């Protein structure tokens, strides 16, 4: 049994304990314990029924904890001696866990950590490694998150928008580590899409698939960023694109547009172009207009200016850029790009250097520095 299959069992196992009356935080701890044990013992001695093994192991762990904690858990001990309930609804319970772990009372990073552990079935060590913090720090972040939601009842209807936001963050801002967070986000979005009937969930899944399809082309072997226009499109994953487009079309047909569907539509239009020069920028601008109507986000306005620059020329792009507040990150980089396209090489070189100084990530800073150096070499 591979680790992904093991992870898929985790939310259902937690749900079994919760159904038996254990509070979520305690149940989740017990399951984490069983998970860590499974990862060490299964490679040599895999159980015939992995889910039953996890339930039994987590249950014993809970009983041990409850006994050692004494009276505080007396009530739970009583529950433990009662027979487990009959048939269960795994789907509904797993969905409840998504809602709980992405509860609006949690900060986004707390929700991300808790979702990865309780729904994703990752260990604290794996999550800590993925976000480059010590395991003890991540453990604290998770237990604080659990305390924050300790009064939330699992039967309260959840907020799907915050769940989608959390999965988007896992996909978009994940670091690299032993666990591929982009793939983990896709797995969780896929699982969520199977349990819900909401076009925006499909929209998010499509968006992830369409961007993930470009992964191999996005960086050089040495790790430098390759801008979309210069990517080797033969390296794009056509299977992921086909799946993303199909999911998106089904969602769009339901005529309940949302921000993730609109973003996915833009990604699909890029995927549709065999070469960068064949990109349908006019239609992309129209989708940005839709997106602006939905979100009115400054980042969308910035990206729209890039698209306008491609559709109607650099000058038009620069005019569109005037609508974007000066404080929006990456605005200077976009301005540099459009100025160069407008033939203002000197100004573009300065702006690229300025954008590099303000960059918040290493790959982008290096990319902008290269652009500034390239233009300065032309000027000298």
């Amino acid at each position, binding site marked *: 049994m591979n680790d992904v299959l093991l992870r898929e069992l985790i939310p259902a196992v937690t749900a079994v304990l919760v159904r038996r009356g254990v509070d979520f935080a305690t149940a989740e701890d017990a399951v984490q314990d069983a998970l860590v044990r499974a990862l060490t013992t299964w490679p040599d001695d895999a159980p015939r029924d992995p889910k039953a093994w996890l339930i039994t192991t987590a249950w014993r762990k809970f009983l041990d904890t409850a006994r050692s904690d004494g009276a505080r858990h007396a009530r739970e001990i009583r529950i433990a001696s009662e027979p487990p309930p009959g048939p269960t609804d795994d789907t509904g319970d797993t969905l409840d866990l998504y809602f709980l772990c992405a509860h609006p009372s949690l900060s986004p990073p707390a929700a991300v950590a808790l979702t990865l552990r309780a729904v994703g079935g990752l260990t604290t060590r794996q999550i800590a490694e993925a976000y*480059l913090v*010590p395991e*003890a*720090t991540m453990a*604290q972040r998770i237990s604080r998150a659990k305390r924050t939601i300790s009064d939330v009842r699992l039967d309260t209807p959840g907020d799907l928008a915050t769940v989608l936001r959390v999965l988007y963050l896992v996909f*978009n801002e994940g670091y690299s580590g032993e666990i591929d967070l982009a793939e983990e986000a896709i797995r969780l979005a896929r699982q969520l899409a199977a349990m819900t009937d909401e076009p925006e969930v499909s929209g998010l899944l499509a968006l992830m698939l369409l961007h993930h399809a470009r992964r191999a082309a996005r960086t050089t072997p040495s790790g430098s960023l390759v801008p979309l226009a210069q990517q080797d499109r033969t390296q794009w994953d056509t299977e992921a694109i086909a799946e993303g487009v199909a999911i998106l079309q089904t969602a769009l047909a339901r005529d309940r547009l949302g921000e993730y569907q609109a*973003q996915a539509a833009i990604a699909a239009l890029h995927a549709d172009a065999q070469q960068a020069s064949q990109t349908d920028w006019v239609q992309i601008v129209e989708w940005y207009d839709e997106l602006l109507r939905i979100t009115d986000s400054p980042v969308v306005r910035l990206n729209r200016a890039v698209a306008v620059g491609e559709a109607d020329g650099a000058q038009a792009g620069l005019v569109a850029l005037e609508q974007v507040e000066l404080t929006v990150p990456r605005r200077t980089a976009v301005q540099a790009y459009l100025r160069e396209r407008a033939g203002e090489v000197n100004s573009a070189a300065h702006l690229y250097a300025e954008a590099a100084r303000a960059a*918040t*990530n290493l790959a982008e800073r290096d990319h902008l520095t290269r652009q500034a150096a390239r233009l300065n070499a032309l000027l000298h």
Partner: protein
Amino acid sequence: MAKYLLLKHYRGGPTPYVDFGTLDQWKPEEVEAHFQYMRDFAAKLESTGEFVEGLAAAQEGTFVRYDGPGRPPVTDGPFAETKDLIAGWMVIDVDSYERALELAGELSAAPGPGGDPIYEWLELRPVLTEPPTVTE
């Protein structure tokens, strides 16, 4: 979350707000209280899930550079008086820039002689991240 580097300088940076001297001139219990504050601060950040790492550097350091093929590196220093000298650093992982400022302010209030805050200047630097996947 965003990571920030909190840099503590032995020397350098803006003019000190108060002159608290060097630690070797403080009373032993004042020195101990100062160190304890640092430990408590790190422990608190661990419990809030915001601590990444902290290190202290020795007071003396040497500048080193390459000196051409086949030649040993050239060293310069240690110097008794340099313009700037890093004392140590702490890396934190926080929700916002405002939170980073708040924590830096708190660390700067470490006690000095007489138990008063030393109002120490700390340098706050954002750490570069991985690039986001979706940028269009």
